[in-house]
């Protein structure tokens, strides 16, 4: 049974109706094509209506929808299942919350990297809920350097509730690992495209987020802190997450309007979780489009533009 978010209930009810009608039809042999067509129209209208008016908090909930495609799902689809996963940071261990490896994007070798969440209780734990340890960031950096050495472009998929705040993560330098990625990614000579496919929580997301093009899927968020933590710190209560979500301006459209990301990728109507295959297709198309544009620039031009872009972020009064 698919997970239904509160505000998706009207859609779920229509879907249920449709299912019942189909069941009746298959038993009785009655022609219900007209009813089905009407219901499909209604479903589409309901999706449109609901998804066009999502609040920031509702978008946060969609970004965490358990049926949403995760990094590996995108990687396999975009690379037509050619992805060869590569493991380990060569220092401590292999972080399961951060995956990476070469894959072929319509014949062209690309380094795909991403934060990976699990799909059930067991795999969620195995993936540490998509929260990398320092070795995850170091593995990502190792693979990025590998890509640079062999002149292959890099695509990262961002989807994390944050870098893991554990004891060992601190011992092994979580801060240093993220910081190192920021400075190293700035100077990568190959094209770098970053796509926020779910949650973009703070430094944990940014750690694989310094790209020539940083894109956000329509129903994702990216900010300095999750709305819940923001509520607990600034309002000293967990009850203001909706308010915090609004105040943080963390949606794709806000981030784009504030020039903090380079583009928004539309999702299938009703969110990526309603039609993963379509979401895959759209993302693949966007990646190819941007790669082609980035190919036209020299490494020096890309690096200069990348650095300039991030240096222009921020608003101050002289």
């Amino acid at each position: 049974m698919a997970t239904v978010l509160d505000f998706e209930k009207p859609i779920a009810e229509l879907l249920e109706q449709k299912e019942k009608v189909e069941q009746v039809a298959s038993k009785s042999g009655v022609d219900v094509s007209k009813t089905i067509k009407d219901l499909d129209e209604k479903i589409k209208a309901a999706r449109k209506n609901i998804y066009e008016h999502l609040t920031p908090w509702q978008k946060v909930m969609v970004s965490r929808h358990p049926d949403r495609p995760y990094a590996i799902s995108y990687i396999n689809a975009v690379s037509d299942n050619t992805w060869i996963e590569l493991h380990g940071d060569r220092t401590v261990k292999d972080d399961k919350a951060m995956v990476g490896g070469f894959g072929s994007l319509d014949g062209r070798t690309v380094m795909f990297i991403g934060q990976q969440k699990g799909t059930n209780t067991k795999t969620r734990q195995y993936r540490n809920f998509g929260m990398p340890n320092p070795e995850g960031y170091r593995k990502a950096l190792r693979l990025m350097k590998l890509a640079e050495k062999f002149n292959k472009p890099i695509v990262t998929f961002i989807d994390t509730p944050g870098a893991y705040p554990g004891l060992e993560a601190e011992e092994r330098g979580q801060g240093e690992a993220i910081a190192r990625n920021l400075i190293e990614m700035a100077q990568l000579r190959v094209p770098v495209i970053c796509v926020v496919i779910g949650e973009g929580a703070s430094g944990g997301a940014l750690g694989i987020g310094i790209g020539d093009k940083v894109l956000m899927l329509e129903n994702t968020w990216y900010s300095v802190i999750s709305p819940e933590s923001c509520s607990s710190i600034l309002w000293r209560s967990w009850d203001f997450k909706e308010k915090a979500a609004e105040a943080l301006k963390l949606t794709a459209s806000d981030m784009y309007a504030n020039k903090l990301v380079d583009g928004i990728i539309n999702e299938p109507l009703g969110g990526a979780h309603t039609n993963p295959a379509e979401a895959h297709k759209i993302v693949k198309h966007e990646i190819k489009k941007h790669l082609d544009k980035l190919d036209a620039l020299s490494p020096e031009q890309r690096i200069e533009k990348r650095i300039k872009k991030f240096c222009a972020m921020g608003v101050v009064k002289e």
Partner: protein
Amino acid sequence: MSNWFKRIKEGITTSTKDKKETPEGLWYKCPTCKTIIPSEDHAANLFVCVNCNHHHKIGSKEYFKIIFDNGAFHEINAQLKAADPLNFTDTKKYTIRLDESIKKTELNDALRTAYGKVHGNDLMVACMDFSFIGGSMGSVVGEKISRAITYCIEHQMPLLIISKSGGARMMEAAFSLMQMAKTSVKLSLLAQEKIPFISLLTDPTTGGVTASFAMLGDLNIAEPNALIGFAGPRVVKETIGKDLPKGFQTSEFVLEHGFLDKIVSRKDLKQTLGNLLQMFKN
């Protein structure tokens, strides 16, 4: 006999408001070892406890005085102030928070940048002020560091950043987050110019500051017993559901795990910086 119990003298008649209090600030009590010494002596000892070496939090004003020869320096971009790009309000409007902080601290934001000489060597110092909204990093901190780096590149001048911060400033949300990116990518340009960058981590250095410029020094040095980490100790404790080991996330702990080059007491700071700058130069 009964006279003994009679009040002959008048009681204390001085009203509370007329009572003479010891003027505030005359004495300093160390929060760690409770030693009490005259504030003047404490300042003369660079705000370090004479008894237990506790390094009291100080700001850019004090660091500039300690580091620069004769306390002489040129501050740059002092006029920069925070805007409120998101029109942010939590329990208080961000603009009001800013005005109050500016009034209270007599600072414009949480970082000042200035250059001068250290034992005759040129040095740019970017120093954070914890008293200004917890030393949090917003657009101003990022922009000032970025401009300081530009100046360093133009003048081939080494850079010291003194970190003292709770992390990114929430009221500027993603703008603050991107200051991590901004400062780090800019530091990559300084690195390409082979201009030395020394990072000094002081109590406390956490969050987005640790996860960007503070950990990116050619040399990372720290004051003794400073809190240094990515996640705050409370968060780590909640995550692991256990008490934290003694000394967790102190400078000594971070040194032991390989992320600091050296721990330097405040009284040795200037000399150490001078020596290091000479080493890079000669």
